[in-house]
């Protein structure tokens, strides 16, 4: 079953190449169906191998493919364990749904085949990332998803903002990658290999806590880039310039969770470095809070979802930070479904509104788009943490685990609750502003339900959004058992008693309900409330982080570069070179002054030089 797993990477890659080279000839919509087919087949290939873990017959395997960089002993190899199986399911599963959705969504785009080529490339890259059996190959996937993300964000490159957003995403990610690379260096120097199996098996004996802390913190820098954690979160909102299916697949469900996945994958190392874990948890919490505070004021429907994604990623990072890897991955899973659904729903709305993204110009869409309305409603409840929707379970697990850690983590738990409140608030705001109330759009827009290729994914995702949380409840920890072998060697967090879990869950639920109850009446009105307070304005501008970076990093950096280009090179270095040249010529000119053309002078020089020569001869030769 696992013999064919390399096809999970190869098929989407093949699809990408075919669409890239021959897409124009294949044309629309076949190129889209082709791309969908490749991803779907990948999914189908992975299903039996994944089910074997569920049934308990599967076992963790490393599948050697070929020797990649022999100089540092890196092999192209696949690690097939429950964690990678789960990620494969999410990526290819949700991926194929979004491909299907895109067939309708991208209709009429002049670079239709190109879009699917990039999408397939993304799936292939993401599969490299999750299937990697060592850090080096993981880094390959890591970077390639960055590339796909760049290509897809700036897909509509004629829009300057889209092009800039793609560039920004890649560059900010690269800052994180720098951390990842340095981590790789330390890993290699400490272990002599990148192989997960070896690294994790020998870590407790081979490295000190200090080394582990360094490695994990640097890995987290990488994770912060990819998963949009503070202070590298700035690229994700801009990434919404890409087509909406891209936002759903890459910037909500899969790629952005790579950081969380990577931390979970490195659980053994993080276990060794409690300080790093605490820092991760704090950063995650801070990110969750800040993003939520920004999300409440956004008027662009995709921007709300983008900040909400950052906020939810913060939760996940908090989860893995406190050592609740299963909970983190669980939230990753549920979030993948409901956030993909939210984005696709938003895309459906945007599609229907003729590319209008401002929620203030929507409203009352429930009648025009019933399927979208219902499915998005499920996602709204899920993300708000309403029982028994999926988000409720996974979010609570994280909060419970944080609480269980005790000490200062109680504070983080408190902040987490606040974020839950805010989440419920802004999601309700979004839902209400979009679907309820009176229509606020102008007459020439004719909202309509989207075609079947778009609604089928919505329904499928809707089903999972409702149900997927049930795979891991305090009553039935199926998910945890499934992942057990991936987190071998990681200390289990002491489970809370059912009673205390129930109390915590109830508190969270109450908070969520409060959030909904606060927002619902506020926005379900004919007249939208004015949001022009100082806080709202700052929040709308994302608290000016971009501007701060511009002032403190970009501008001085550019100035330094310009100084080097305009002063250092031409004036200092070339100046020195020219100076030497001028010095030599100057010397020549000075000598030239002796060239008077006067015989008297020449004869004098001749005589003096001759005299000196005689004296030197006599002095030098005096001894013999």
């Amino acid at each position: 079953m696992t013999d064919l797993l390399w096809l999970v990477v190869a098929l989407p890659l093949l699809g990408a190449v075919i669409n890239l080279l021959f897409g124009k000839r294949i044309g629309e919509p076949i190129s889209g169906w082709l791309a969908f087919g490749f991803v779907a087949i990948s999914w189908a290939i992975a299903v039996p191998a994944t089910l074997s873990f569920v049934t308990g017959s599967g076992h963790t395997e490393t599948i050697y493919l070929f020797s990649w960089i022999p100089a540092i002993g890196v092999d192209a190899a696949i690690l097939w364990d429950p964690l990678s199986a789960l990620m494969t399911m999410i990526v290819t599963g949700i991926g194929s749904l979004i491909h299907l959705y895109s067939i309708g969504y991208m209709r009429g785009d002049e670079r239709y085949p190109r879009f699917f080529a990039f999408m397939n490339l993304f799936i292939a890259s993401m599969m490299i990332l999750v299937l990697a059996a060592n850090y080096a190959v993981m880094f390959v996937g890591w970077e390639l998803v960055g590339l796909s993300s760049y290509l897809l964000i700036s897909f509509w490159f004629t829009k300057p903002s889209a092009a800039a957003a793609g560039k920004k995403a890649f560059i900010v990610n690269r800052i994180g990658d720098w951390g990842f690379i340095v981590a790789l260096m330390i890993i290699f120097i400490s272990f002599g290999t990148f192989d997960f199996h070896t690294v994790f098996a020998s870590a407790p004996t081979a490295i000190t806590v200090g080394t582990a802390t360094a490695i994990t913190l640097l890995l987290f820098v990488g994770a912060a880039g990819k998963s949009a954690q503070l202070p590298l979160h700035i690229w994700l909102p801009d990434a919404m310039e890409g087509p909406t299916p891209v936002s759903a697949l890459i910037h909500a469900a899969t790629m952005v969770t790579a950081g969380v996945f990577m931390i979970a994958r490195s659980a053994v190392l993080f276990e060794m470095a409690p300080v790093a874990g605490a820092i991760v948890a704090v950063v995650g919490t801070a990110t969750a809070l800040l993003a939520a505070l920004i999300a409440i004021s956004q008027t662009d429907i995709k921007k709300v979802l983008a900040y909400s994604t950052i906020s939810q990623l913060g939760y996940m990072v908090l989860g893995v930070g406190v050592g609740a890897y299963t909970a983190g991955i669980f939230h990753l899973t549920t979030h993948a479904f409901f956030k993909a659904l939210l984005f696709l729903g938003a895309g459906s709305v945007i599609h229907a509104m003729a590319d209008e993204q401002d929620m203030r110009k929507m409203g009352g869409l429930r009648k025009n788009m019933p399927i979208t309305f219902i499915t998005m409603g499920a996602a709204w409840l899920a993300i708000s943490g309403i029982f028994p929707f999926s988000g409720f379970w996974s979010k609570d697990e994280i909060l419970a685990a944080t609480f269980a850690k005790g000490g200062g983590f109680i504070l983080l738990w408190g902040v987490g609750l606040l974020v839950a409140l805010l989440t419920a608030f802004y999601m309700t705001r979004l839902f209400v502003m979009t679907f309820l109330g009176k229509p606020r759009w102008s007459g020439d827009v004719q909202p309509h339900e989207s075609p079947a290729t778009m609604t089928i994914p919505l329904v499928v995702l809707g089903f999972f959004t409702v149900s997927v949380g049930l795979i891991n409840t305090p009553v039935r920890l199926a998910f945890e058992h499934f992942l057990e072998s991936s987190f071998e060697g990681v200390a289990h967090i002491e489970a809370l008693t059912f009673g205390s879990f129930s109390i915590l869950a109830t508190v969270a639920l109450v908070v969520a309900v409060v959030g909904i109850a606060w927002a619902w009446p506020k926005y379900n009105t004919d007249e939208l409330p004015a949001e022009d307070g100082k806080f709202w304005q700052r929040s709308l501008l994302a608290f000016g982080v971009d501007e701060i970076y511009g002032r403190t990093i970009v501008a001085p950096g550019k100035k330094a570069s310009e100084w080097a280009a305009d002063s250092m090179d031409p004036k200092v270095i070339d100046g020195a070179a020219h100076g030497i040249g001028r010095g030599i010529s100057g010397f020549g000119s000075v000598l030239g002054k002796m060239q008077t053309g006067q015989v008297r002078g020449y004869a004098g020089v001749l005589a003096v030089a001759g005299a000196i020569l005689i004296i030197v001869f006599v002095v030098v030769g005096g001894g013999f």
Partner: protein
Amino acid sequence: MPVLSILIVLPLVGAIVVGLLPRHRTELVYPIALAMSIPPLAAALHILWYFNAGDASFQFGEHIVLVESFGISWTLAVDGISLFMVVLTALLFPISIAASHSITDRAKTYMVLMLILETGVLGVFLSLDLFVFFAFFEIVLIPMYLLISMWGSENRAYASLKFVLFTAVGSAFLLASIVALGVLTGEQLGTLVNFDFRNMLSVEFSSTTELALFVGFAIAFAIKIPLFPFHTWLPDAHTEAPTAGSVILAGVLLKMGTYGFLRFNLTLFPQAAVDLAIPLAILGVIGIVYGAAVAIVQPDIKRLIAYSSVSHMGFIVLGTFALTTQGLSGSVVLMISHGLTTGALFLLIGMVYERTHTRKIADYGGLAKVMPVYAGIFLFSAFASAGLPGLSGFIGEFTILIGAYLSLPVLTIIAGSGVILAAIYLLWAYERVFTGPVTNSKLEGLKDLGFREVAILAPLIVLIIGIGVYPKPVFDRVEPSVEIILDRIEAETEFEVPEFARVSDLVDIDYEAEREVSDHDDGEEG
């Protein structure tokens, strides 16, 4: 069969054939010159094919005494390091010649110079007699000088002279050092002078002599590479050079410097190499950051790529002076990769320059709309240059970084920031040139790349991907040669090449067994 001599002579024969073409048959020049650049490639591939992988010694050796009284001989051989430089050279020349279709002014002279240049470059990489090596090292200046000064753009006189003078200053020290080395070797052998590289290996120096000779060689190669702060000739030369000149300059000429470091500085003067490794690595790292930072703000796309070369070459120097197997092998791979990626970028710039006659970034915008294929290939090359995994640049840079971290951790961490800066300058340039709306009306209606142009770029693209995905054949040939350099350093000095922790033997992994089986399978196939 003296295949290496044949390889060196073939381009010269080509130059003579092209030179003898009748004056009025100008239409013959391009096809014949192109045809004449193929046999050297075939010869190089022959060498590549029959090269014995895993063998560290020099292969295909030839040795003819030329001037006995001055200890000069025609000694040629390849090892894993020079092998790929030779193949790269033999590959880039046909490509550059093919890309010179638009040269109509004195085309014959141009082609003759290109072919002579090829002979010179091949001679540099193949000669093991230092006198002959120096002759080839220096002669390369003339055709390149003429190519820039005859077919360059506005400021060509300044740029070409700057190119020659900067490099020649280095050559002056190189020549003096070679003379001294030859005399010392002769003394050791009991002859008057001797320039045979292999005889030099047994020479013992006083530490000051060794240091002085090392510095003499190092200055020459540092300027050629070019290492900060000797780099200012490069942007000027690149900007003014015709397309093929830029391709060759970046693709192979700069490699003469890094190759020289590997072949001569590390091998002949191990103690000095160990002593001066850190200062040189520092210069390399400064080059990485500085080159990249300056590249960001360049208004001229060719200058931008030129500065990116400074940055990339810094990586190679860092890898070289890390003095680890990984660092050195990575350097060789990056040398190859830089030749391919930067070559592709310069070709691409040349192709659009032929259409628009401007290299100013500000004159462009939205080009991807007009020339989608062109934009795609450019972006591919840019990412390859920025070290995207899966493409050749990554293999080199990554191996260097891992290898260099072992001996120079702090420097390597700083060097790692090069990956950020590379993304900034390349993507920002791409953004300004290719994206957004078409603002310059001159760009409208430009023709996208034609078949010939894509065919010129195709071999580079294939190799960039090929080496990126499966670099093992390269490493198999490079590593043994690199290891004997390090073995020699270890034998001659107190220095110990740092080893990575090897914990794999602590852990019982069943997949190791599986791997051996697959390796075994590979072996049977091969």
